[in-house]
C-alpha cells in the first residue's frame, strides 16, 4: 500500500488519472470503430507537432518568469519567418531551414523587447505576458495586411488586401520534417520519424543549454533570485536570456507545427497557442517555478492524447462533439490548479 502511495506521490494524481483515462480511450476506441493504429498515429503526429512549443516553456519557468502565456510572441515570430521563406519562393529542406533561421532571428528580436518588459514588472509577469502576447498578435494582424508581400500564393485573392488567413505550404516545404524517414506501419499508422527526431534534437539542445554556465545561472535565478544576486549574477540579464530563448524556441515550434499541418495560420490564430502549451507542461508535472524535459514529454503526450482521443471516441460513441469543451475544462482547470498551489 505504501508503495502505491509513493507512486501516486511521485507521479502525481492528475497524471495518473489522465493516463488511466487515456488508456481506457485506447481500449474503447476499436469498439466504436476507431482502429488503434489510427489513435496511435493521431497522438504521435500531434505530439510531434506541439512538442517544441511546449518545450519553449522551460527557460522562462526555470528563470522565475513564470508560465509563458506570451507564447504568441514567439508564434508570430515563427509565422513571420515562414511567410518570408515563402516570399523567397524557397522549397524543400532549404525552404524550412530559411524559415527557421528567419523565425529564430525575429524570435530573438521580439523576445528581447518582451524580456525587457517582463523585467520591469516582476511579480506580475503572467497577466502581463498574456496581454503582451495578445497585443502582439493584433499588431502583427496590421502587419500581415500592410507589409508589401508579393508571393501570390500567400496573398488574398479577389482583390482583397494583405496575406491570407491560412496559407498552404504544401508546395513549398510542407511535411519536410514529418515525411523525412517516415516509417509506414499500417495503412493508418505512419511514424513521423523526422519530426520526432527533430523534437528529440531540440530536447537535447535544451538539456545541454541548462548544463552550461549560463543555464546553471538561469536555474539559480529562478530558484532564488537573492542567492543569485549575492553570487554576482545579473538577475535581469539571466531573465532576459531566458525570455529570448523561450521565444526563439517557440518560433521554431510553430514552424514545426506548420510543416506538419500544411498551413501557416495568421491573424487571430496565434492567440490559440497560449493556453494549451502552458496546460500541457503543467499536466506533465511542472509547477510555476520548476520544469524539466520529462514534464514536457509526458505532458505533451497526455494532453494531446486527451485532445485527440477523447472527442474521437465520445463522438463516435454518443454522437456529441465535445472536443472544444474537454479542451477548455482540462487545460484551464490544470492552469488554475497550478496557480492556486502554494508556491514553495
Amino acid at each position: 500500500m505504501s508503495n502505491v502511495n509513493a507512486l501516486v506521490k511521485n507521479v502525481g494524481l492528475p497524471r495518473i488519472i489522465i493516463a488511466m483515462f487515456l488508456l481506457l480511450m485506447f481500449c474503447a476506441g476499436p469498439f466504436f470503430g476507431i482502429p488503434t493504429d489510427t489513435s496511435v498515429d493521431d497522438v504521435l503526429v500531434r505530439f510531434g507537432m506541439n512538442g517544441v512549443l511546449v518545450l519553449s516553456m522551460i527557460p522562462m519557468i526555470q528563470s522565475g518568469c513564470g508560465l509563458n502565456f506570451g507564447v504568441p510572441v514567439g508564434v508570430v515570430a515563427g509565422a513571420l519567418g515562414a511567410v518570408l521563406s515563402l516570399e523567397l519562393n524557397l522549397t524543400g529542406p532549404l525552404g524550412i531551414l530559411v524559415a527557421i533561421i528567419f523565425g529564430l532571428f525575429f524570435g530573438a528580436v521580439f523576445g528581447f523587447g518582451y524580456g525587457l518588459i517582463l523585467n520591469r514588472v516582476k511579480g506580475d509577469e503572467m497577466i502581463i505576458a498574456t496581454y503582451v502576447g495578445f497585443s502582439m498578435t493584433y499588431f502583427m494582424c496590421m502587419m500581415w495586411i500592410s507589409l508589401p508581400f508579393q508571393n501570390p500564393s500567400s496573398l488574398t485573392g479577389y482583390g482583397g488586401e494583405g496575406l491570407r488567413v491560412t496559407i498552404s505550404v504544401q508546395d513549398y516545404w510542407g511535411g519536410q520534417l514529418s515525411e523525412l524517414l517516415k516509417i509506414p506501419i499500417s495503412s493508418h499508422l505512419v511514424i513521423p520519424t523526422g519530426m520526432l527526431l527533430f523534437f528529440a534534437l531540440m530536447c537535447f539542445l535544451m538539456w545541454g543549454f541548462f548544463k552550461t554556465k549560463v543555464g546553471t545561472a538561469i536555474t539559480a535565478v529562478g530558484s532564488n533570485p537573492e542567492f543569485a544576486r549575492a553570487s554576482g549574477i545579473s538577475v535581469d540579464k539571466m531573465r532576459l536570456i531566458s525570455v529570448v530563448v523561450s521565444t526563439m524556441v517557440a518560433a521554431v515550434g510553430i514552424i514545426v507545427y506548420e510543416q506538419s499541418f500544411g498551413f501557416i495560420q495568421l491573424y487571430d490564430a496565434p492567440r490559440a497557442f497560449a493556453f494549451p502549451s502552458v496546460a500541457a507542461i503543467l499536466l506533465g508535472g511542472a509547477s510555476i517555478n520548476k520544469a524539466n524535459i520529462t514534464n514536457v514529454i509526458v505532458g505533451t503526450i497526455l494532453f494531446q492524447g486527451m485532445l485527440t482521443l477523447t472527442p474521437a471516441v465520445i463522438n463516435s460513441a454518443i454522437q456529441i462533439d465535445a472536443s472544444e469543451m474537454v479542451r477548455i475544462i482540462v487545460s484551464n482547470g490544470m492552469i488554475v490548479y497550478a496557480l492556486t498551489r502554494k508556491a514553495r
Partner: protein
Amino acid sequence: MNKRMRYILVNSAVPLLFILISAVAIPISNFSGMYLLSEIITRLTRNSFMVLSLLLPVMAGMGINFGLILGAMAGQIGLIFVTEWGILGAGGLTVAAIVGTPIAILFGWFAGNVLNRAKGREMITSMIFGLFMSGIYQFFLLYLCGSIIPFSRPNLILSRGYGVRNAIDLEVMGGFDNLLKVWVNGIAFPVGTFIIIGVLCVFTWWFRKTKLGQNMRAVGLDLDVSGSSGIPVEKTRMQAVIISTVLSCYGQIIYLQNVGSLNTYNGADQAALFAAAALLVGGATVSRATVVNGIVGTALFHLNFIVMPVAGKNLTGQAMLGEYFRMFVSYGIVTTALILHAWSRKKNTDSARAERK
C-alpha cells in the same frame, strides 16, 4: 499648485490622449456629431454598468476582475430561462436578474475561494478561472439543457433535440430602454436604463463610505496591516468578488437587452477585455478607479471604437486595418496600464525605502 497641476495631468494622461486621437480621427471619419452622440448614448446604455462592476475588486486590491465573464454567464442563463418562460419587458429582465443572482453569487463564491489561494496573482487567476467556468457553462447549456432540463420552446433548442442554440433572439429586448424613453432632437434617451445606472453610481459612491467599503479600501491598500487590525481580510476580498460578479450579471443583462440577441457561447468572451479597457481609458489604474473613470472611459473608449475603423479605412483604403487597429488598441491599453501599474508599485517601494534613510 504646480505639483497639483502635474498630478492631475499625469492622472488624466490616458483620457487626454484619447481625446486627442478622437479629435484627429472624427473629421477623417466624416461622421456627423449627431450620429456620434446617439452612438455614444447607446454605448453608455449598453456598457457602463458592466464597467462599473469592476470598481470594487480594484478597491479591494485585487486588480481588474478579468473573471467578470462569470457574472456575464449567470446573466445569460437568466435571460435564456426568461425567454423560455416567455416573460416580456422589464418584468422579464427583472426575473432574469432574480434567476441570475444566486448563480452569480455561487460563481463569485467559487472565484473568491480560488483568488484567496492565489494572492498576488489575482488577475491572471481570475482570467483563467473565468475560462475554466465557461467550459462548465458550455457543458450545462449544450448537454443538460433540453435533455435533463426540459425546454418547451423549439426555437431555443438545437435541431438535434437538446442543447441551447448558438444565437437567440431576446424577446425582452429593450425592456429597460423602453421604460421612460425620451426623444430629444431625434436622439433617443433610454431614461429607464440611465436611472438603473445612476442607482449603481450612487450605490458605489455610498458603499465607499460604509464600514465594509472602508474595510475593502484598507485591505486593498495593505493586506497585512488590515489583517492585524482585525479586519477579516479573506472574507472582505470574497465579498468584493461576489458583489462584482453579481453586478456584472446585471451588467450583461442590461447589455443584452439593448443589443437584442444573445450569442450563447461566445457572447461574453470579450466582455472583460472591453470593460477593463474602457475603465482604464477613463484614467483609472489597476489600484485606483472611480465612478467618473468608468463613465468617461466608456464614452471615450467606444467613441474611438466607432470612429477608428472608419477613419482608418478612409485614410488607408483598407477596411480590415482599422478593425485590427481597434483590437490592438484595446489590448494595448490594458497591457500598458498593467505595465505602468507594476512599474509604479516597484517605484513606490523604492521611494518608501529612500524615505527611511
